């Protein structure tokens, strides 16, 4: 089995660009990834592309070949749809294809156009990640689902809105130097607590924004990187996937994410590491409570204690294990199909010392990226390590 290197990463700015087509977004991100990698486009053997709501936002299915074309690549292409974990899944498949020798070079990433739908339209589009018959038709929205989990968490373990506000404050702070972030603006706890309610107990400041954007990675085999003298100092050494029942009410626990635990355990074992080895992580904070649940599922916090992690400074930039130094989905933005691969891009830059927040993790050698779909009926976790 060959190792997998990240030769290049590329992101568009994440934010409000309702007029930009997803093909244009992916063209920009993939161009940046190729420029960063030094790998010629003609060496690409496959394109793996994540997207969630393209049918609703752009009336566009069959997006694989469209995106290969947009990237200027002539190679077979596949679109991956796993709600907000779409490009995490694409990365996982890309890693497995390179490992088993199927390909030496792949282009993997994702894009999402969302803001052209407006708030109501995007809320409707995001809701299709839930069970249409048993959840959506009862009026459950995507924020509503996480609100149900947040309320269940408070009841089971304690904590409250103020603890969650600290997660938002931390992630906004982290996004300040990130030029690709949707919000480069600090917020205060009091401001977050005063924000309008979206779905109680969650307010506007507990929720990630609607975002347009794309991400791309050029992955190569270790052998290809060596043979072509490609500068690719970070390797993807672990990959894991977890699954769960689709509807939240069918899960054993309403305030835990077993699919993320399953993915994390698999990825840690695959890389031969333990949670204690993780120096830095990007976790899927579509809502503040989601960061708490992710920390616990990844064993970065004991179950029931993740709620105080941001407030007590265990996950801030100056802590031993900073979480979401990019700003997370909360402040960096969440163009859903682009998110999973964008998290990998952020961890690569943090480990390579090329991220605006790398100073906070100067000695880091091991990073983790956690991507979740729906109410975490799908999850991927990847382990990245400095290889040279």
């Amino acid at each position, binding site marked *: 089995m060959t190792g997998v290197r990240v030769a290049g990463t590329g992101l568009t700015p994440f934010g409000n660009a309702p007029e930009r087509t997803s093909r244009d977004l992916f063209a920009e991100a993939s161009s940046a990834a190729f420029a960063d990698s030094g790998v010629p486009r003609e060496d690409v053997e496959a394109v793996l592309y994540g997207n969630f709501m393209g049918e609703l936002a752009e009336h566009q299915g069959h997006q694989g070949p469209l995106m290969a074309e947009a990237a200027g690549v002539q190679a077979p292409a596949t679109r991956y749809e796993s709600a907000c974990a779409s490009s995490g899944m694409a990365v996982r498949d890309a890693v497995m294809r390179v490992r088993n020798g199927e390909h030496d070079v792949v282009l993997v990433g994702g894009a999402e156009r969302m803001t052209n739908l407006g*708030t*109501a*339209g995007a*809320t*409707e589009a995001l*809701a299709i990640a839930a069970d249409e*018959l*048993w*959840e*959506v*038709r*009862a*009026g*459950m*929205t995507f*924020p*509503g689902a996480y*609100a*149900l*989990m947040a*309320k*269940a968490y408070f*009841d089971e373990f304690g904590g409250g809105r103020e603890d969650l506000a600290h997660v938002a404050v931390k992630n906004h702070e982290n996004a300040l130097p990130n030029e690709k972030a949707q919000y480069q603006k600090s917020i205060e706890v009091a401001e977050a607590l005063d924000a*309008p*309610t*979206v*779905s*109680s*107990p*969650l307010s506007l400041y507990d929720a990630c924004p609607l975002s347009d954007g794309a991400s791309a990675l050029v992955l190569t085999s270790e052998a290809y990187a060596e043979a072509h003298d490609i500068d690719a100092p970070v390797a993807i050494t672990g990959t894991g996937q977890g699954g769960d*029942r689709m*509807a*939240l*009410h*069918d899960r054993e626990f*309403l305030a835990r994410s077993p699919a993320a635990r399953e993915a994390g355990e698999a990825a840690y074992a695959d890389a031969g590491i333990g949670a204690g080895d993780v120096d830095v992580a990007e976790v899927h904070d579509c809502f503040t409570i989601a960061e708490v649940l992710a920390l616990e599922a990844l064993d970065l916090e004991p179950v029931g204690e993740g709620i105080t992690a941001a407030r007590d400074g265990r996950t801030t930039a100056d802590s031993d294990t900073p979480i979401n130094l990019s700003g997370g989905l909360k402040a960096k933005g969440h163009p859903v199909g682009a998110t999973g691969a964008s998290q990998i891009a952020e961890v690569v830059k943090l480990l390579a010392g090329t991220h605006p927040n790398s100073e906070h993790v100067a000695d880091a050698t091991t990073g983790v990226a956690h991507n979740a779909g729906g109410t975490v009926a799908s999850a991927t976790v990847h382990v990245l390590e400095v290889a040279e």
Partner: protein
Amino acid sequence: MSDESARDAGFDDWLDAAETGDAYYLECPAGHTSLPPRRLCPTCGAAELDERPLPEMGEIETFTVTHVPTPAFEDDAPYATAIADFGPIRVTGQVVDLDPDAVDTGLPVELDVTSSETTGERVIGFKTV
């Protein structure tokens, strides 16, 4: 959107049953429970699924009051969505007979199929007992 005249077999049948007080859940020989439409137990794959009467009373286990709805519930917001535990199975629904601010965990509820103020479509509801 799908053809609105077409029923969702299994699901609409369940709503019909719930409207006459005959709601049910499915149980496999190993005791795993689920909601229709099912041909197979989602836990073990068993094909033998028996319909059993849903216990009359459930209890609100968690809830949220939604202020930013999908377009299908535009005129309904704010409304309370809850997950109620009926013992062998949980169900997600809207609390219909209480001010959303009065909804709380632990409240006993019964199923009550209601309709969306926005679309007139049937909605799984809970009324307090």
